[in-house]
Structure formats: structure tokens, C-alpha cells
């Protein structure tokens, strides 16, 4: 009898309260009907990545019964400015209206330390459900299980990803999984100051213009006395805008498997030497030091640069500057290499991702699908390029961007967009490359010396990679 405890009134009361609590908790959980999907995924089988077929169970929430409390999901983003934040709230309101069982709570956070905090929160299990992500976060995070693969949801719900003109797989795919849907599409564009072009007696460049034509334009637009530059290109270090010349010349930064540096190959060297010559031989491109003093693209904003490479997301600032400074501008196609006839631009956008340990996968997916889908992209298209083709080709969108012809950068990105070489260790090898890259522009190293050292450092990093870092 010693081991047994008598059922007292107090114990009965406690048990009752416990049962009530458990019942209440159970009621708060979304009821789910598991859906089974079979798909091909990449797995590490005894150290070697292999493609295997795996059955994935995706839980789908049923419609919530009346009177049930809505599920609150946290949507985190670094501060984007008043207008974008207003649009985000409109999206959240619209989604909540259409899905009364979902309550979206937006968290605007400081940009500095955003990624560090997100990692820490994820480790602690307190991360938001949906978050904005940059290209150097998604694949490193996805490789470590930090983000949810959206492919099973896309396949289950027939999300129209094939309607996207933007090559999503290049930037956001990792081992067969897709880890984000667009905030809005973006990438490298060439801005030209039409007013300065007219003053120099130049027409807008033809679509098939070459690097030689580009140099001729840059020289014609440079006026040292006026402090006017022919061209601006601040982000020369790979994997940024400077890559477009490397790819145009027929070179690459890494091999196809992304596990060996290829910058020492002649084509890549030629692609680095071209902007180097623009800077030091022809003096039509300011040095990184000069650009850093006044801020990137400031010379273009103030009408003191004939052409400039920048992201499509700069368009709002260029538009404002052109109004205040009284100049006209237009997009131009990226010039092609005179021999290889290759044209290349760097892609560069941000995505919404779902954190891997969210308790509310369905609700989070509903939000991400809304933002990346037609309605969300339509709301965001005043800030950037919408992903769906039907939107980017619509008169409504073209009107938003008038008088500029936004089809120019869109077609460049679609035909010739290159990714940022996203790998699980991209930040580490980007840093190694950046360390060796600097002396090229300070005159302390030749292009060949710097690239040779950079490749040695990058290959050293790749040699240490655990198997699951490999792209496959």
C-alpha cells in the first residue's frame, strides 16, 4: 500500500485542471491531415552526396472551425523604409482578411546584426516564422537545416513557379530544394544618363554593342575638367558586378561544381583586366577609394557620370535624383564581349524564407506564397521587378517604370543572369577573395598575382569542406 497514493479531493482537482489545460492546448493546435508527397532529394549516403527518392510528409492544416483563436505567425524583416513597410503591412492585412485563422505580426529590426540574431534565435527556438534573407544567408542556412524547403509546398499547391521569368533555381536552390520566394526580382543593370549622352553626341547604345563600343562611350563621356566620369562600377570584387566582365570574357570564378577556383584561367584574368584598364589605363572609371568617399552611385545621382552599373533596386533613387538634378536617363543592355559574344549580368535579389523550426508551417507557407505569388508581387512591383512573367510583361508594370524601358534589364537577367556562386561557405571564400582583391586597386599587386593568391586561399577553404557543403 506504501507505493499507492490515495485520491484526495485536491489531487482530483489538480488532475481536472491539468486535463482542462491539455484540452485547451490541444484545441489551440491546428488540426492537420498529413499529405504524402514523393520527391527526389539529395542525401549524404556514407559521405557521398547521392540523389535518392524520399517520401516527404507535408502536414496541411484544415480549415479552422469558427470561434477558434487565430494562429499568430511572426514575420521578421530588417527596416526597409516607410513605403516598403507600408506595403508589407498591406500584404499582411490582405492575407489576414483572406485567412481569418492567421494573424501576421511584423517585426521590423535593425539591419546591423540581423543575421547574427536570426541564427541565435533559431538555435534558441525563438526565431520568427518567416524572414527576409539575402543571398549569402539562404544557402549557408539551408545547408544546415535552418530553412524549410518550399518545393513540397510548391508541388502540392501547384504554386506557379514556372510562371516566373526570373531564374530562381540559380540563386535559391540547394540540392534540389528551394529555400525562398522573391521579395522582388533584382540584379545588375546599366544606367545611362541620356542628357550627357546627347551632349556628347551619342545615341543610346544598340542592344548588341560590344565592350569596345562601351569603352568608346565611356571615353566620350569622361570629362576630367568637369569632374565627370564615363562609367561607375563600385562593386568589382566577385561575386558582385565585376563578375559580369569575367563571365563575358568566357571565364568563371568557380568551376561548375563550385569546389575549385578558376580565376587563374586566362578568360577570367581578361575579365578582371578590363575594368582595371578602364580605371588605370583609360581613366574613365573612378577608383574604389574615390567612390567610397562620396558614396556609391553618388556621381550618377548628381549627373556627373555618363553610365553606371548598379542594382535594379537603385531605380527609385536614380528617379528622384534625375528629377532634382534635371537629367534624363535610361537603361542600356550589358555590352557583349567582342570575341566571345557573351553577355552576362549578376542576379541579386532577396527572398522570404520559412524558418525550419516553425510550429506553423502551413500558415507561414500561406504568407510566403502570398508574397511570392501574383498578388504580393503586384503590390511590391513599384519597388522592384515582379517574378511572374504575366506581371513583368503587363502594361500596368511597364507604366509604373515609364519612361524607362524596364524590359532591357529584365531581358538581360533572363537571358544572361548569373548567380553569386552561392555555397554553404560563401561568406568565408568571398572574404578570402576580397582580401587578395584589394591590392589590385591600390597598385600593390598585379591582377595575375592577386588572382593566383586568391585561388590558393579559396581552394584551401574548399579542401576543408565537410561532405554536406558540396553543391552536388
Amino acid at each position, binding site marked *: 500500500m506504501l507505493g499507492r497514493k490515495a485520491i484526495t479531493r485536491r489531487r482530483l482537482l489538480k488532475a481536472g485542471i491539468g486535463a482542462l489545460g491539455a484540452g485547451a492546448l490541444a484545441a489551440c493546435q491546428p488540426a492537420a491531415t498529413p499529405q504524402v508527397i514523393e520527391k527526389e532529394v539529395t542525401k549524404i549516403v556514407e559521405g557521398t552526396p547521392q540523389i535518392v527518392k524520399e517520401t516527404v510528409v507535408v502536414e496541411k492544416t484544415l480549415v479552422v472551425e469558427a470561434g477558434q483563436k487565430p494562429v499568430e505567425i511572426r514575420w521578421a524583416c530588417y527596416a526597409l523604409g516607410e513605403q516598403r513597410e507600408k506595403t508589407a503591412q498591406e500584404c499582411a492585412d490582405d492575407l489576414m482578411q483572406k485567412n481569418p485563422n492567421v494573424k501576421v505580426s511584423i517585426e521590423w529590426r535593425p539591419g546591423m546584426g540581423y*543575421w*547574427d540574431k536570426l*541564427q*541565435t534565435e*533559431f*538555435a534558441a527556438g525563438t526565431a520568427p516564422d518567416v524572414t527576409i534573407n539575402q543571398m549569402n544567408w539562404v544557402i*549557408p*542556412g539551408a545547408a*544546415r*537545416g*535552418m530553412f524549410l524547403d518550399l518545393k513540397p509546398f510548391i508541388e502540392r499547391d501547384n504554386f506557379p513557379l514556372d510562371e516566373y521569368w526570373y531564374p530562381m533555381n540559380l540563386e535559391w536552390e540547394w540540392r534540389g530544394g528551394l529555400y525562398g520566394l522573391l521579395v522582388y526580382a533584382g540584379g545588375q543593370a546599366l544606367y545611362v544618363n541620356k542628357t550627357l549622352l546627347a551632349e556628347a553626341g551619342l545615341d543610346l547604345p544598340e542592344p548588341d554593342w560590344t565592350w569596345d563600343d562601351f569603352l568608346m562611350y565611356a571615353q566620350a563621356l569622361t570629362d576630367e575638367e568637369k569632374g565627370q566620369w564615363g562609367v561607375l562600377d563600385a562593386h568589382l570584387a566577385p561575386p558582385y558586378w565585376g563578375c559580369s566582365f569575367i563571365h563575358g570574357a568566357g571565364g568563371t570564378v568557380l568551376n561548375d561544381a563550385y569546389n575549385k577556383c578558376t580565376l587563374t584561367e586566362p578568360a577570367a584574368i581578361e575579365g578582371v583586366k578590363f575594368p582595371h584598364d578602364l580605371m588605370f589605363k583609360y581613366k574613365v572609371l573612378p*577608383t*574604389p*577609394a*574615390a567612390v*567610397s*568617399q*562620396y558614396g556609391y552611385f553618388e556621381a550618377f545621382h548628381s549627373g556627373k557620370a555618363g553610365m553606371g552599373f548598379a542594382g535594379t533596386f537603385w531605380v527609385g533613387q536614380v528617379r528622384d535624383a534625375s528629377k532634382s538634378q534635371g537629367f534624363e536617363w535610361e537603361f542600356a543592355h550589358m555590352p557583349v564581349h567582342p570575341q566571345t559574344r557573351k553577355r552576362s549580368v549578376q542576379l541579386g535579389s532577396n527572398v522570404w524564407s520559412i524558418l525550419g523550426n516553425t510550429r506553423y508551417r502551413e500558415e507561414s507557407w500561406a504568407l510566403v506564397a502570398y508574397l511570392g505569388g501574383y498578388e504580393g508581387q503586384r503590390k511590391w512591383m513599384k519597388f522592384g521587378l515582379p517574378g511572374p512573367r504575366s506581371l513583368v510583361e503587363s502594361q500596368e508594370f511597364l507604366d509604373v517604370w515609364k519612361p524607362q524601358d524596364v524590359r532591357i534589364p529584365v531581358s538581360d537577367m533572363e537571358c544572361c543572369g548569373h548567380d553569386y556562386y552561392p555555397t554553404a*561557405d560563401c*561568406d*568565408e571564400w568571398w*572574404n578570402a577573395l*576580397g*582580401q*587578395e582583391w*584589394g*591590392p589590385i*586597386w*591600390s*597598385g*600593390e599587386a598585379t591582377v595575375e598575382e592577386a588572382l593566383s593568391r586568391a585561388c590558393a586561399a579559396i581552394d584551401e577553404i574548399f579542401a576543408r569542406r565537410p561532405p554536406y557543403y558540396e553543391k552536388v
Partner: protein
Amino acid sequence: MQEADSKPQPVRRRMSPSEKREALEGFLAISPWVLGVIIFLIGPIVASLFLSFTEYEVVKPPVFIGLANYTRLVKDRLFWQALKVTATYVFTSVPLSISLAFAVALLMNQKVAFLGLFRTVYYMPNLVPSVASAILWSWIFNPEFGLLNMFLRRLGVANPPMWLISTKWAMPAIIIMSLWGVGGPMLIYLAGLQGIPTELYEAAEIDGAGSVARFRHVTLPQMSPVLFFNLVMGIIGSWQVFTAGYIMTGGGPRYATWFYVLYLYNSAFRYFRMGYASALAWVLALIILFFTALVFRSSTAWVYYAGELKGRR
């Protein structure tokens, strides 16, 4: 034995209710601090020690790997570079800032016009947040349009240094920038200088001591505890230098400003190697402990405490 036997034995006395209440209130009053130290200081210290023996990618659970992180350190080229760069910074910046701060404090201790203004001007850089001052100095050091090179060109220097983008000049630039913050230690020196009894100077003067002798035999010994304090704080702070490398150079060019804590931070949050970063942190803690202990040990030879009897500190 007799002495030990004759020692009064401690008498255990029961606390009265009011004494108990008083003790409880005392513990309650200090409990936020104690809890804070346990949760936010001791906890992370213990956790980081444990993590230093693991492979921990932050977003995945840690895996115990024994001493692998520490053995990897020995072979890590970037670890040795970080150590070399930071040591160079510490052994240059600390003596320079101590000397400069002391010299400025001596000047600020003179009876000259606008003394209050001068003191304020020298101290003001300390009020500027470190990130803002790093950005400001990036402009000053800009090789083409920066104030410093503009000034050097006016002086006739045809090819002034490239500063932050030069492998040779990036570190000297950051050391120069660090001297901007001498206002902090200067204020402490100034307080110390003003605490030196004037009768010591009067006595020295009567004995025929000139200004150099007074400085050497009165000011320096009297100021030695303050110098000691600033030296210890300088060593501890300088080994942890971070902002300049993070904001101004990213550790470059060619790892010329690859500071230890920058490498630690990159390892933890950019390269997903929190376990390795923890090992780096513990090695840094030991390095700081070693140099601090060295200074403490040497202090018996050069630090003078008024009223101190040797051997009975």
C-alpha cells in the same frame, strides 16, 4: 601552539528575527546583481568553455570533438595572422596612447587660458560612438580625397600613403585612429596629477630639484598606480579591438588588419563555427590573462603606493 590555543573560539550565535530579516533584505537587494552575473556572465563563460570542445554550427546541436578545435588552431594560418596583427596593435598602440595621454594630461594640468575648453576638446572624441568615429576616420584616410592626404600634399608629399587600402599603411592608420581616444585615459591621469600633494613638489624644490627631477622623483612615482591602471586596461582593451577592422577594412587588405576578435566574430556568425570561435575566445582570454599577470607581477618593481609597507600589501 600556545598562541593558537589562546585564539578566541568563534561563538555561533543564533540570529535574532530582526537580524534574519535584515540579512534576507540584504540578499534580496543584491540578488538582481548576483542573478545577472550567474545568468549573463558565469553561464556564458561555462557554456563557451564547453562549446570550445564541440563542433557547433549555431543552428545545429553541438557535437563533442574533444581538443580538435584547439589542435586546429595551431595549424590555422589565419589564427596566427590574427595573433600577429593584434599583438602588433597592442604593443604599438598601448605604449603610444599611454605616453600621449600622460603628456596631454601634464599639459592640461598647467595653469593656462581656456583650460576647460582644451580639456573638453581632448575628451570629446570619447563621446563619439566607435562606429561613427570609424566611418569618420575612413573619410580622413581616403587616399584621394581624405583630409590627411590633402594636408600631406600641401606639405609637398607627392605620393602620400594609400592608408586603409594599403597592406603597409592600414595598420599604422588604425593605430593613429586609436590615439584619437586618449581623452579617456587623459582624464584619469589628470585626476591623478591633481591628487599629488603640492608639499612634495615644495620639498623637492627646497632640496634643489629642477623640473625634470621633480617629474622623475615626484610625479612619476606618485602617478605610477594610475599608469599601472591604464596599462592594464589598455592591454585588456587592445587585445579585443574589433570595430576598426570590422567597419573600416574588413580585416584587409591581405589580412593586414585581421584582428583577433574580428576573426572570432567571423568564425562564429559568418562561418558557422561557434565551437571554433569559443576556442579562439578561450585562447584570447588566456593571452590577456598572461599579459595582465605579467604587468601585475612587474608592478612591485615600479608601482608606488603611498603608505605601503613592502611585504604587507
